[in-house]
Structure formats: structure tokens, C-alpha cells
């Protein structure tokens, strides 16, 4: 794998600010492999699993986990995406946002174990929205949560079942995940000087 430059994708209109790399491509790959094994262990195999990534970056993460499970178990776990935009509790605080893609695997979610996959777990509000969205889609046997990074600062009683890395942060810092496919490279970086706005994924 190529060495990882500490050059995250710049937000539009801003000058790229170099962040501190906390996970490089190799670290991310290892973390996803570990999560995949933990999911299998916990679920006692891949049967009845459904992986749902939360767009944007939860989706490629879910797909990578599915690849790893397939290579271990020889079984393709149904994988999809779940947009939570309309279920967000801050919907009314910003102009209407474009919807992201929802794709529920043909098998559906009823009676299955759904693993929600997201890149960063922060306030927990996105996951709350995802649980509500799932509720309108069917009745899973169980719902688990896998995240690449848990940065703390929860505002709701929500925790992850599978965590790539626990990352203590301050509220003024921003955690940025880039993934090849959407972005140039795989990396998790921390940005933020004092006074910068708090994390971008509340």
C-alpha cells in the first residue's frame, strides 16, 4: 500500500488544512478486519446478517466488511445503504438537504441481524435517526452498530458494538475520515485549532 499523505480532502472554499493522521490506510484495513471477525464471532457466523452503511462513508465501510466476511466465510452478506436525512433531529435547522441513497437488500431486514456501519460515532444522533428509519423499514431481530472511530461526547444513550478505534477528542477538534473510492486515500485525521467549529458530524 502507498504511504499515506496527511492531506485530507478540503471542504469547498477552504484552504486545505493539514491534519494529524491518527489512522492510515494500513490501520484502517486492520481495524475493518478485526471488526469483521468480531461481527462473525458475536453473531455466531454470517447467517441472517445484513450490513447497512450510513451514507456517505458508512457505505464503502460496510462493503469492505462484507468483502472480508465473504473471504472468511465464503458467504456474501446482503449489504445496502440507509439514508437517515429525513429522520435527523436537526432537519429544520438547515436548508433542506439533498437525500442520499437508500438501498435495502432484496432479502429485507425482518427477523435479521442488522449491523449499521458508520465512519465516526460522535453525539449518537445519526444513529438514533438510523434506528427510527429502520423502524419504518421492518423489524430486525437485533440491531448492532459498527463504527470506524468512536470519538466520544455522546448526547444520547447509544454505544457501538464494534469499534475500529476509540479516539479521545476535544469538542473543538474535527475528525475527518477519507476513503478511497469517495476520496483519494484511506485515512483518519484530526483537525482543529482552538476556536474552530466543533466536529462536522454531530
Amino acid at each position: 500500500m502507498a504511504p499515506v499523505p496527511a492531506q485530507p480532502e478540503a471542504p469547498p472554499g477552504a484552504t486545505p488544512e493539514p491534519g494529524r493522521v491518527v489512522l492510515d490506510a494500513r490501520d484502517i484495513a486492520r481495524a475493518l478486519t478485526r471488526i469483521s471477525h468480531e461481527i462473525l464471532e458475536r453473531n455466531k457466523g454470517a447467517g441472517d446478517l445484513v450490513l447497512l452503511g450510513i451514507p456517505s462513508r458508512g457505505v464503502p465501510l460496510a462493503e469492505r466488511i462484507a468483502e472480508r466476511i465473504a473471504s472468511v466465510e465464503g458467504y456474501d452478506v446482503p449489504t445496502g445503504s440507509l439514508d437517515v436525512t429525513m429522520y435527523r433531529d436537526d432537519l429544520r435547522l438547515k436548508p433542506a438537504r439533498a437525500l442520499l441513497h437508500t438501498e435495502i437488500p432484496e432479502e429485507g431486514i425482518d427477523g435479521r441481524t442488522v449491523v449499521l456501519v458508520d465512519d465516526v460515532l460522535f453525539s449518537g444522533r445519526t444513529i438514533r435517526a438510523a434506528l427510527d428509519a429502520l423502524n419504518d423499514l421492518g423489524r430486525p431481530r437485533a440491531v448492532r452498530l459498527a463504527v470506524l472511530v468512536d470519538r466520544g461526547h455522546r448526547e444520547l444513550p447509544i454505544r457501538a458494538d464494534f469499534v475500529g478505534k476509540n479516539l479521545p477528542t476535544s469538542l473543538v477538534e474535527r475528525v475527518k475520515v477519507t476513503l478511497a473510492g469517495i476520496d483519494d486515500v484511506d485515512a483518519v485525521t484530526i483537525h482543529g485549532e482552538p476556536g474552530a467549529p466543533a466536529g462536522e458530524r454531530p
Partner: protein
Amino acid sequence: MKRHLLSAADLSRDDAELVLQTAAELRSLADRPIKKLPALRGRTVVNLFFEDSTRTRISFEAAAKRLSADVINFSAKGSSLSKGESLKDTALTLEAMGADAVVVRHGASGAPHRLAHSGWVRSSVVNAGDGTHEHPTQALLDAFTLSRHLGRGKAGSLDGRRVAIVGDVLHSRVARSNALLLATLGAEVTLVAPPTLLPVGVDTWPVETSYDLDAVIPKADAVMMLRVQRERMNGGFFPTPREYSRRYGLDGRRMATLQEHTIVMHPGPMVRGMEISADVADSDRSVIVEQVTNGVAVRMAVLYLLLGGAQPGGEE
């Protein structure tokens, strides 16, 4: 997006593509067990119809309800033109009810514009068809339908696609909105009509015009037939319905000259045997029923984008 949707001209290409993309996501809702999303919970949408149009009203009603909005249907037939309750008084009533959006159908061109800009109401106004002016959500659903069948690339681009709009352009709000929107989306629109049914100044529109249906349709990727309203038939715009039908109707013979992939559209309600023959309307090329399905998704997208976030012009 602007705060109101009064004309297809209010939509930039980015706006229009956002609506279509949002509609594409929302269309799958119809396949889900619970056909409901919470985005407009607590919002009130009023359907204010001064003209009968059951199909448009139920389409908006379904769209609003699937987004969890409260829907009030206000049928005000017998508008101020016929000395009923005035548009203004109706608007003030709606304002008092706390409407967040007013979906208005009115026989007078510009009535939604008046509603939006006269200070009578604070809500968003969606034009559901005004006089002989515009019907922007119909154009959006037509564009959506076109994009699903003819769109190129992931985004379903209509760039360079040829659309013939045939019939009473002069009195058609559907034609006006489609001409504007489809041109915005990069399609090449040709209006086909007898000269008496093309508006003065159509040469300034972003479209081609033709009097000759047979010359246009073999090159078209889509043919959109417009309804000929009964009251026009005796208005002296053409000699007889039979002659109109012969020169500007889409029948089996003409359908045979279409390209393989060409689709046939109609905003409804159809006058079978007049502008479109029954065998064409019921053929495989016809996407007329699908237009209705798509109408709900497109109207959901419009309502969501107007009302789902912070109210433009409000907090933002």
C-alpha cells in the same frame, strides 16, 4: 431553491436536478411496507383548488401525507371571478390556519404569484396550475419520466434529447412549463401545433417550432401530446376536430414512424380519438400511467425541498 415554486423558470439547472434526484430516492418509498417518511411532521400543507382537478389534488395530497404533513383540502370552486370568496380572503383564512405551504390551482394566470407576493400569506406557494400560464410540477414529473427512460449517465441527463410537444400550446400551462424546464435541462424541445395554437412571441422561447407533425416525430426521442380542450374545438382555432385529429393527432400510423426507443407521453386527461388514438395510448410506448406514479414522487421532492429544512427567507 427559491421559497416558492411558481414557474419552471424559478428553477436553475441545479435546482431542477436536485428535485429529480430527490424524487428518484423517494420513488422507492412506494415499494416499502410503510409508505411514510417523517420529514414534514408538524407541517401543514393546504391544497387550495379553485378549479376541479382531482388527479393533481390527490397527487399532492398523497405526496404531502407520505411526508407526514397535515393536509387540508380547500376546494374553493367558484372563485372571485364568479363572485365567490376572493382569493385574498381565502388566503387570509389559510394564513390563520397556519399553513406552511399552499398548493394552489387557479383559473387565472398569475394567481399563485399574487398569493406569494401580495403579503397575504407567509407560507410557501406551489403552483399546481394557473390559467394558461404554468404547471411546474407537471413539467418536473415529465422531466423525471423522460430521465428514467431516456436519461444518459448516472444522473439521467437529458442533454440533446429531442422532445416534441404537440397540440394546443397557446392555452397549455403544461407546454409552457415543459418548454422552460426541458430547455433548462438541456433537452431540445420542438413545439408542434397549427399556427393558430402557438402563442405570439414563441420565437423568443428556448425551443423550435413546427407546423408539421410528420416531419418532427421520426426524429423525436419522446412525443408529448397535449389535450385539446373541448371549449377550444369550437373556438375557430381549427376548422373541425376531425381535421385537427388528422393533422395533429397521434395515431397508429404515425406511431409506426417513431424510433424504437421513443416514448409517448400525455399529461392527462386524454381525449382519446382526438389528439391521441386509443391504440397509441395503450401501447408499450405509452408511459402515461407511469407519469401519474412519478407525479407523487416529484411532488414529494418539491414539498420536501421547500418545507423540509429551515424555511428559506426565515431563519436562514
